[in-house]
Every structure is written in structure tokens, then in C-alpha cells.
């Protein structure tokens, strides 16, 4: 309980724009750098940030998977092994880096993130799309879990062989109810937003304070510096 409160307070102290920048830096490093060391150092920096925010389990889990993927890839390269696929291992370690700050982004209260987005020079239409995407992503994941359960009950996911023999059918069974449910929820959500004045012309302020503070400046300077250095390594 205490850990939860501490984590919440620390997350409350950071601005959404800082975490967005962290995610952007992670994406740039992962796609530009060719050095294992450069990539590894930046991943370790993000690992430290996640730990500082109290997300120890997730940080450790990601970092262990990251290390295993890299070490395995090195062994494969040295001994000419190709199981599991080197491409798969590369994808795992490359994508884990941006996934880590993205996870932190998902932990920020959506209201706070919206407040941060509103302070950025983004056109309103694009911002609305971003906000709706952020709102809808967890819903879609939840709904997909329910559809997967229904498919399990019906026997559509009885075995891997069954799925591989009928890939298009399986895809259809997954997508059709998802589409119907998402359309219904989108409709209800839009109605709820309209009756609560989303279309009002007033200038909007937020429940949360969106301000770049000392902690944000520190994270921005160190992260941008680290990203540049790691790309040059």
C-alpha cells in the first residue's frame, strides 16, 4: 500500500511531456544506434528511471528479458545457431527499449497526460485523436480478452494446429465481435462526452498542474544527452 502511494506521488511529480520525450528518445536510440553498448546503456538508464518511479518488477522483468535476448543473440552470432530466429531476438531487444517508457506513459493519469498534451503546439483535431486513442487502448485490450475467452469456450482456440489450419476463420472470429463491441462503446463514449460539454468553446484548464519542474529538466537534459551519446557510440 505504501509503495503504491509513493509510486503515485512520484508519478504525479513528472510532466506528461517529459515522458513523451523519453519515449521519443528511446525510439530514436533503438532505430539509429548500431552499437550494443550504446543501446544497452540507454536501456539501463530507462531501467533506473522505472525503478525510481517504483515500477521495480516491470523494470526488472524487461531488463532481464532484454539481457537474455542480447546474450542469446551474441551466442547465435558466434556459433552460427539460428534457433530461435535471430530476427525475433533482435526485434525483442530493439522494441523493449521504447516499450519501457511507453509503459510509464500508460501509468500517468490520463487527465494529467491530456493536460500536458494541451500545452503542446498540436492541432486540436490531432490532439483529440491522441486522447481518444489513449482512452480506447486499454478498453480494446480488455474487450479482446473477453473475445478470446469466448473463442476458448467455443473451441475456436482448441489447439495451435486448429488455429493454423483455419487462420482466416480464427481472425474473423476475433475481429467481428471486437468491431461490434468497439462500435457500440465508441458510440456510448461519444454520447457521454457530448453531454459533458466536450464541444464547448471555452479555453480548457485541468485538474492537474502541467508544469515542467526541476525533476523534468533533469530527466530531459540527461536523457537527451544520453540519447545523443548512445547514438554516436
Amino acid at each position, binding site marked *: 500500500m505504501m509503495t503504491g502511494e509513493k509510486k503515485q506521488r512520484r508519478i504525479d511529480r513528472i510532466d506528461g511531456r517529459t515522458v513523451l520525450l523519453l519515449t521519443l528518445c528511446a525510439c530514436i536510440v533503438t532505430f539509429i544506434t548500431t552499437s550494443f553498448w550504446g543501446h544497452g546503456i540507454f536501456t539501463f538508464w530507462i531501467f533506473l528511471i522505472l525503478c525510481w518511479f517504483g515500477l521495480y518488477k516491470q523494470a526488472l522483468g524487461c531488463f532481464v528479458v532484454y539481457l537474455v535476448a542480447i546474450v542469446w543473440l551474441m551466442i547465435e552470432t558466434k556459433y552460427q545457431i539460428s534457433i530461435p530466429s535471430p530476427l525475433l531476438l533482435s526485434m525483442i531487444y530493439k522494441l523493449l527499449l521504447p516499450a519501457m517508457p511507453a509503459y510509464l506513459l500508460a501509468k500517468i493519469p490520463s487527465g494529467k497526460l491530456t493536460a500536458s498534451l494541451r500545452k503542446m503546439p498540436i492541432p486540436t483535431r490531432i490532439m483529440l485523436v491522441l486522447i481518444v486513442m489513449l482512452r480506447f487502448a486499454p478498453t480494446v485490450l480488455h474487450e479482446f480478452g473477453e473475445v478470446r475467452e*469466448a473463442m*476458448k*469456450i467455443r473451441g475456436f482456440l482448441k489447439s495451435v494446429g486448429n488455429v493454423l489450419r483455419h487462420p482466416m476463420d480464427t481472425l474473423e472470429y476475433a475481429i467481428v465481435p471486437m468491431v461490434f463491441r468497439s462500435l*457500440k*462503446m465508441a458510440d456510448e463514449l461519444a454520447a457521454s462526452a457530448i*453531454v459533458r460539454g466536450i464541444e*464547448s468553446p471555452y479555453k*480548457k484548464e485541468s485538474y492537474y498542474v502541467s508544469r515542467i519542474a526541476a525533476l523534468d529538466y533533469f530527466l530531459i537534459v540527461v536523457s537527451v544527452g544520453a540519447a545523443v551519446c548512445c547514438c554516436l557510440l
Partner: protein
Amino acid sequence: MGKEIMIRDLTFSYGGNGNQLEHISLDIAAGEVIVMTGPSGSGKSSLTRVINGLIPYFYEGELSGEVFVDGKPLKEIPSWERGKIAGNVFQDPRSQFFANEVAGEIAFGCENYGYSHEDIQNHVHRAAADIKIQDILDHSLRSLSYGMRQKVAIASAEAIDPEIYVMDEPSANLDIASTYRFADIIRALKQQGKTIIIAEHRLYYLMDLADRFLCVQKGKIVREFTAQQMKALSNEEIRVLGLRTPDLHQIEQAEIPSAATSEVVLEVKKLNHSFGETIVAKDVNFQCRKGEVVALIGPNGTGKSTIGRILAGLLKEKSGEVVLFGKHCRSKGRLGKVWYIPQDLDSQLFGEDLLDELTTGAEVSPERKKAAEEILEALELMPFVKQHPSTLSGGQKQRLALGVALMHEAPIIILDEPTSGLDGMNMRNVSRMIRKLAKMGRTIIVITHDAECALACCERAIRLENGCITDDFQIRGAEPLLDKIGYDKKEG
């Protein structure tokens, strides 16, 4: 003080598909609590949507007639401004939330209406304190029970301090204790002089709150009752009007002979499960016989659905044993034998029409087609056979889900809240179908808060609280069941 509403000769149809509302004229005084009840599809929700302005702005159609709020025509008020006048609470809080945490959700309306940061904080904290949820402002909405989510929905409406509240089936997903707490909130709003309009099937919790009950049928207000007149209705009159029973003590248990045999088909032994530190099943033991219909009752969030999903093989138990037909059965082996029908059926529909829904997933031989037709006939769904499953009403969807279970010859069926959001007539229909299936030799477990449904189709009840079985008893009359679900335990 609340605002008065005047409706004059209102007629509405969704794009020429027959009139949803027909020549409705209604006066609602400021500070009045009005309950609209009646069968599903009768026009209750449409009427609430006209009052909150969603019709015709968002739900388009042909609208004639006028709505006045404090003498001013509603159509002269800009659509975005109507939310300041009327606060809304919908049936499913999941799809009305815009934030992922409580404070952000309560603040949403204030943010939209241009309040300053300080004002937003003040309004959020005041609304949270009024609804007594100030301790959970930083909690994730997903982690909350249905009861708490509904409180957040009300706080979210209250933060803007509207003079009118419009609620559409707000108690559909609440257990009895949460429903009474919800009634207390409505009482407090009434004392503040707010005008409150509630479209609702469940009436018992509104009997000492509502000033008038309007019975809506086929788009018209056909009857109007005071609480006294409502309570005086006989069971036969309630059935004819297709309503839920206003006083649950009045319910007569259906006298249907038990179809249960002596054969034990399901045995649960020392079942344990937890999510993190939250225990949802603790040494759970019970048996069910062939043809038995058992109600699984207990408060929201007490582990009923989790146990249902474990029995169906969708979740693996932490420890304990599930025995089917005398043999120990692992979770994977239970899939398809114990058939779990969840509360939300929209994500469970795979077919293009009702026959396709029953036969999908395997080759359609003439025998399978015939079997599917027989099942649809037995469930009284043949008139809708060509329809897309998602276009069926809630009660019809439940019957279709039962049909899918029958098609797969599942001997044990678990229904999770099959009658939530159903009107009296549909609730009785689904209950009748459950009895019919029991007669056909199916064992049925009904997870429910709905005493009317349990009394209409179940012969035994198992009560769970904090993952433990507290009671396991034969249902003989309404009183013992009502006592166990806490019907008379209203909090001050």
C-alpha cells in the same frame, strides 16, 4: 432549486423505423423525482435522450414537439451547454468514463466548461466528499467495483452542479447493498431540490423516493402511479404491465417441480484462488446434481464470477479439485463441458444470423442444421432467425447464448447475471427457459443479484462472501432468500 421540464406533443423516430415516442406530453415540477418504467424498447431511454439533448443532436431522427426547461425551449440552448443543465448517469459506467483514474473523470466536465484549475479542484473535491469517495481520487477506475464506479459517475455529474439529473438504468449492475447506497445518494440530491428523472426496471429501491412512476409502453405514457398505487398493484397486474415487482416481499416463488436427479455431476473440493493478495475463493466446497438450478449469490466483487470462470476452465485454480461426473478434471478438460455465459454478450456473438451463430465453427451438415432449428424453436427464437445476433434485445441474446450451449451439448451451464438490465417480462422469459433447460437434464448455475430471477428459476442458493461460502440452502419461499441477499438491511 431544480428546474421544471415541460414536454409538449413529442414524437420521435430513428430514421423512419416506427415511432419510438408518440405524442408525449409531460410536466415535471422542479425538485420532483420521476421514475419511467416499462418494457425494454418502450421508449424510456429515448425520452431521457430527448431531455439531455442527445436526441436529435447525436442520435439523429425525426423529432417533432417541444421540450422546455424553466420555460425556455431546449432547442434554443446550444448542444454543448445542455450538459451544464442536466447531469447524466448511464447504465454501464465503463463506457461513459473518459479518464482512467477517478479524479480525472470527475474533473472532465469542469475542464470542458472552462473552469479554472483552482475551481476544478474545488468542484472535484466537493463532489467526491458529497458522494464519500474522496479517499479514492487517485485510484484507477478499472480497479473499482460496479457500485463504486456508479458513485464516480454520479460525482462526475455532480461536479458541474446541474439542476437536473437524468439516469438511465443506473442500478442494473449493482448488488442490493450498493443499490441502497445509490438510493441514499438520490435522496440527498432530492433534498437539495434537484429534479431527477430515472429510467429504470428495478423499482424496489425507489419506492420511498419517487414522486411519480410513469409506465411507458410503445412510445406512450400509458399509466401513472404514486408509490402507494404502485405498491398496491397485484402480481397479475405487474405481469401484464411487464414490470419488475416493486416490493420483493410480494414475489411468489414459482411452483415448478425440481428436475434434479440424485446423480452428482459437479463436485468442487477445497477450491482456492486469489489475485495478488485478494482472496476470491477460499476452501470452496459444493456439489451440484443433474437437472438442478442453483443460484450463486453474494455482494459485488466477492468472487462469484471468478469461481464461474474457474469451473468453466477459463481460469486455473490455485489449489483444490473440480470433479465432473465422478472424475477429476483439469481446467483445460472442463472447457466446453462447463459452459460459461458472461454478463456482456456483445463480445460473444460470432454468427451472421441466428442459425449461423449456433452452427459456426464446424461444418453445417443437414443434421446440425436441423438440431439448431429445433433449439431455436425450443427457445422461441425462430421468428428472429434471419436477424443478426447483435440486433436482438438483451433477453433474446441471453436465450441465444443458452442455445449455443445446448448446441455444444454442454451438460453444465453457468450464467453470469443473465437478467441484469432486463424488464420484468424478459426476466421471466429467461427464467422460464432456464427451467426448461433443467428439465432437459442440464445443470445450471445462475450467478445473480436478482432475487426475482432466483425465485423464478432456482431451487437452491449458495451465498459467497469474501471468497467463502457462508450459506448453502434450498429456496423455500421469498423470505429466506431476501434475508440472505440483504433486502431489508437498508443502511441509515
